[in-house]
C-alpha cells in the first residue's frame, strides 16, 4: 500500500514536470494554426499565420540554413583533420589546444560576440556580411565536432590502422582520406548533427553579430515575439519546431545506437 502511494506520488510529480515542458509547446502549435487565440480553437483553424510568417520571414529561414551548412562545411574541413592531428600527436600541447578550443562552451556567447565586435566591427564589409555570423557559429560549434571525432578515435585504434597503411606505402594524405576518415564516420555524423542543430538555434552570439540585412531564424523569432501578434509568433515557432525536431530525433537515435554497440 505504502509503496503504491509513493509510486503514485512520484508518477504524479513526473507528469506535472512533463506537462510544464509540453503544455506551452502544444499551446504554441495550437496558437499557430488558430484564427484567434483569444477566442480559442473554436474560432477556426487556419494556415494564414504560417503563410504570413513565410512572407515576412522566409529570408531568415534561408539564411539560417545557409549559415548552418557553411558552419558544417568549415567545422568538417577544419575540425576533422585537427581531431586526427590532436589524437596522433597527443602530449601537452595538444591538450592545451583542446582546452582552448573548448573554452567557447564555458564563456557566454554574449562575451564572445562582444569580443568579435570590438575586434572586427570596424571591418565594414565583413561586419555587414553573413560571414561575420558564420565566424561566431564556427567558434561556438567547433569543439563539438572536434571532440565528437576524437571520441571515436579513442575507441578505434587509429595509430595501428594508420601505421599499417603507411607500411604499405600509402602517403599521409591518402591514408587520411582512405583509412582515417572512413573510420571516423560515426563521430563525424554525430558531430555534424550537433553542429547543424546548434547553428540553427543559436541566438546569444547571433543577436549581437547580425545586421538588419543578416537576420537568421532565431533573430526573426525574437523579432516576432516582440512585435507580432501571438498567432504569428506561434506559427513561426511551429516552423522552427518542424525544422529542429527531426534533427533532435536523429541525435537521440544516434546516442542510443552509440550506447547499444
Amino acid at each position, binding site marked *: 500500500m505504502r509503496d503504491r502511494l509513493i509510486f503514485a506520488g512520484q508518477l504524479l510529480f513526473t507528469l506535472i514536470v512533463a506537462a510544464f515542458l*509540453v503544455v506551452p509547446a502544444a499551446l504554441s502549435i495550437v496558437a499557430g494554426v488558430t484564427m484567434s487565440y483569444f477566442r480559442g480553437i473554436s474560432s477556426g483553424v487556419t494556415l494564414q499565420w504560417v503563410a504570413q510568417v513565410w512572407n515576412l520571414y522566409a529570408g531568415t529561414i534561408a539564411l539560417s540554413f545557409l549559415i548552418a551548412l557553411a558552419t558544417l562545411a568549415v567545422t568538417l574541413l577544419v575540425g576533422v583533420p585537427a581531431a586526427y592531428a590532436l589524437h596522433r600527436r597527443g602530449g601537452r600541447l595538444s591538450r592545451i589546444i583542446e582546452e582552448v578550443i573548448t573554452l567557447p562552451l564555458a564563456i557566454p556567447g554574449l562575451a564572445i560576440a562582444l569580443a568579435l565586435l570590438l575586434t572586427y566591427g570596424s571591418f565594414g564589409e565583413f561586419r555587414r556580411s553573413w560571414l561575420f555570423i558564420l565566424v561566431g557559429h564556427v567558434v561556438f560549434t567547433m569543439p563539438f565536432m572536434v571532440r565528437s571525432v576524437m571520441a571515436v578515435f579513442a575507441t578505434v585504434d587509429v595509430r595501428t590502422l594508420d601505421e599499417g597503411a603507411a607500411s604499405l606505402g600509402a602517403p599521409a594524405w591518402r591514408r587520411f582520406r582512405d583509412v582515417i576518415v572512413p573510420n571516423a564516420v560515426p563521430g563525424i555524423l554525430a558531430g555534424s548533427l550537433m553542429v547543424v542543430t546548434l547553428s540553427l538555434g543559436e541566438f546569444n552570439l547571433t543577436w549581437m553579430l547580425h545586421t538588419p540585412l543578416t537576420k537568421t531564424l532565431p533573430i526573426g523569432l525574437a523579432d516576432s515575439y516582440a512585435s507580432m501578434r501571438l498567432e504569428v509568433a506561434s506559427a513561426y515557432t511551429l516552423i522552427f519546431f518542424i525544422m529542429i525536431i527531426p534533427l533532435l530525433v536523429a541525435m537521440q537515435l544516434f546516442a542510443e545506437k552509440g550506447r547499444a554497440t
Partner: protein
Amino acid sequence: MQYGASSRRGAPWLMSHKFFVRLCLLPLVVVTAAFFLLPMARLAVTGAEGPQGLAGYLAILVEPRYRATLINTVLLAAATTLVTLIVATIAGMFLQRHRFPGRAVLIAMLTFPLAFPGVVVGFMIILLAGRQGLIGDLSNRLAGQKFVFAYSIYGLFLGYLYFSVPRVILTIMAAVQKLDTGLEDAARSLGASPWAVQRDVVLPALAPAFVASGAIAFATAMGAFGTAFTLATNIDVLPMLIYTEFTLAANFSTSAALSVGLGVITWFILALARSFSGSAVAAAG
C-alpha cells in the same frame, strides 16, 4: 617496434607524416587564434580602457548597481540549480527505477525541449505566464484575478527551469542506471529505513552527477541571454546589463569588463565541477 625504429632513420613517410599532422592542425590553430584568442584578448584590453583603467574590472564588485545585479544573477542561478536538481532527481530516479506503460513517451516528453534555444524558451514562458498566458487565464477563471509574472525575474527563473530540467534529467538517469543496487539492498537488510537508504547510500553515490549537471545549470543561468531578452529587457541580470551597457549606453569598456567577469565566473564554475567530477562539462544555451 623494429620497423618503427628503422623507418625513423630512413623511410621518407615518417618525415612527411609529422609534417602532415602539423598541416592538419594548422587551420584550427589559425581559426582559433584569429577569431577567438585575438578577440578575447581585445575584450580584456578594452575592459581596462575605461576612465578608471584597470580598476574598471573592480566595478562589478564595487559599484553598487553592478554589484546588486551580480548578486541578483548569482541568486537566480543558484535557485535555478537547486530547484532543477531536486525536480530532475525525483523524476529521473522514478523513470530509471520503474517500468510501466507509457514510460518511453514520458521520457520523450521530458527531453524534447533539449534543442530549444533560449528565445523559444522565453516564448514558452510567455504562453504559460504572460498576458495571454495559460496561468493568467486559469487564475482569472478560478479566482477572478489575472496572474501574470512572465516578464519578471520569476518568469526568467521558470524559463531557466524549463531549459535545465531536460538536460539534468538525462544526466541523473544515466547516473542512477550505473548505481549498484546491491549497496541499497545491503543497507536495507541491515535495517535502514527507506529514507535512510536514500540519504546515506543513493544520494551520495549520485554526487558527481549532481556536481556536473548542477554546474552546467548554474553557468547557463548566469550567462544565458536569449530567454531574458525575450521576456523583458529590464530584468536585472548580468547578461542584460552587459547588453544594455553595450548597445544603449555604448559603454564599451564597462560592458567588456563585465563580460570578462561573467566569463571568468562561468568558466571557473565549470572548471571546478570538472576537477571534482572528472568529466568534461560545458554550458549550453
